[in-house]
């Protein structure tokens, strides 16, 4: 309750400064990965709070981003050497989110100016940080493009234009699909309100993705007590092998 009160207070004080602000709701701020986890859908909805009438001119646009924990990634390129395809060049991308989804109310190019994109790092290429490729590699941009292409193919990166529905310039809602191959962590969720390509307000919160139950127990054991985990794996293997053999010999008789 205190948390909600804090949010309410924050919204109240913030609206004193901003003409239009976000009041956010989510279907869930927690995703539990259990044994039969097969992806998840998060509904993100809310209202735009105003003290004044709706300003005339261009309509308000909403951009929603959800990004997973970032990690450095090595991108390798294959080349034909002596008749066979081998990895030759490699570029290290300093920070790439494990998951990144953008939902917009209209085309991203229309709802966001490049300078604003640069400042808030909203579009997929901007969300990835690559400080620079080694000097000997030409066309380093192709490596980041390849990273995006590969991640998009597995739905790890998504850009869904027009997925945010805005009613009466006040209510908005969208759904973000989280794929089955999800890693643990805090998924930063951002909502941007834009008008004429300028960000007029933004709001940030987190979705907590956690392994639970057996998944959590096994994962912790494998990290905290690797020796025991290894022995347990072997014991299961031996027991299963012996069990199958015993069961089959009963059938033979």
């Amino acid at each position: 309750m205190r948390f909600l009160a804090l949010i309410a207070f924050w919204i109240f004080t913030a609206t004193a400064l901003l003409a239009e602000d976000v009041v956010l709701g989510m279907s869930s701020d927690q995703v539990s990965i259990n044994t039969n986890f097969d992806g998840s859908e998060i509904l993100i909805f809310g209202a735009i709070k105003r003290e004044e009438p709706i300003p005339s001119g261009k309509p308000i646009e909403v951009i929603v981003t959800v990004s997973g924990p970032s990690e450095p990634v090595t991108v390798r390129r294959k080349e034909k050497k002596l008749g066979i395809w081998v990895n030759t060049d490699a570029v290290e991308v300093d920070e790439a989110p494990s998951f990144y989804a953008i939902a917009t109310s209209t085309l991203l190019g229309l709802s966001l100016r490049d300078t604003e994109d640069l400042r808030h790092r909203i579009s997929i290429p901007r969300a990835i940080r690559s400080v620079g490729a080694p000097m000997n590699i030409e066309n380093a941009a192709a490596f980041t493009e390849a990273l995006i292409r590969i991640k998009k193919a597995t739905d790890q990166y998504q850009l869904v234009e027009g997925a945010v529905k805005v009613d009466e310039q006040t209510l908005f809602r969208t759904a973000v699909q989280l794929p089955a191959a999800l890693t643990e962590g805090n998924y930063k969720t951002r909502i941007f309100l834009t008008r004429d390509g300028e960000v007029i307000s933004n709001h940030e919160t987190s979705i907590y993705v956690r392994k639970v139950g057996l998944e959590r127990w096994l994962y912790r054991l494998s990290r905290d007590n690797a020796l025991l985990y290894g022995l347990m794996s072997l014991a299961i293997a031996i027991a299963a092998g012996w069990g199958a053999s015993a069961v089959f010999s009963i059938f033979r008789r």
Partner: protein
Amino acid sequence: MQIYLPIAEVSVNAFLLLGLGGLVGVLSGMFGVGGGFLMTPLLFFIGIPPAVAVATEANQIVASSFSGVLAHFKRKTVDLRMGTVLLIGGLIGAGLGVYVFNILKAMGQVDLLVKLCYVLFLGIIGGLMFFESLNAIRNTKKGKPPPRKKHNWIHGLPFKMRFRTSGLYISVIPPVLVGISVGVLAAIMGVGGGFIMVPAMIYLLGMPTKVVVGTSLFQIIFVTAFTTMLHATTNYTVDVMLAVLLLVGGVIGAQVGTRIGVKMKAEQLRILLAIMVLAVCGKLALDLLLQPAELYSLGAAGH
């Protein structure tokens, strides 16, 4: 039914894994190979991260080999003495192999080396076995007696030992060397090494095919158990959930496979194994020769 794997961090179909385990288990029981050289590429294909696939596969081989070896113990087709000698070599080799693997990893290109190793060894072994067993089948059809065992240089070495189950009286040097070289390759290629061990035992050591399978399985249990522990404690890449699904299918398959194997003729068994080995070799060779659809690949940084 989808199931989320805690270490691999992907969600896969449980029945697909059971099926894969069963299929590879049958082959394992029939031929005395762990099946790792087939299963590991299959796991890559369904989207398991390579490091997890290699480590978990080792754990699964422990189960299917153990199940298989019990069946062979009942038939008394395990040469424990030969198995132990090979195992001593195998553990030394595995240690050496891990050392070599780390040196190559520091130099880069370890993937390429592993693939080239596969193509080279699978090609040579598969080819040799194929033609040898083809000749053997032709000879039996013509009614010619199989050629008598010749005495070669192997019989001139010191430290002779009697291997009663195999009906051999040879020096321990060749089995130890076979064990070491298989151990090195097993560690580098991430497999149990049965597909190299089986032909080496038949052609280099002259062991009877029926004994070879059980003995190979016996030795593989220990080498893969060692590898599993190594992976679990250093890389944290053994996924026990994945292993359980694979091995439930695998142990049942291994029992079925062993029974099929006993009913078949040695030459037929060998020619089938040869065809399978050549097929995997051909697939890997094509991967290296043809232009891949995606030239770029992603990996965790720091390798």
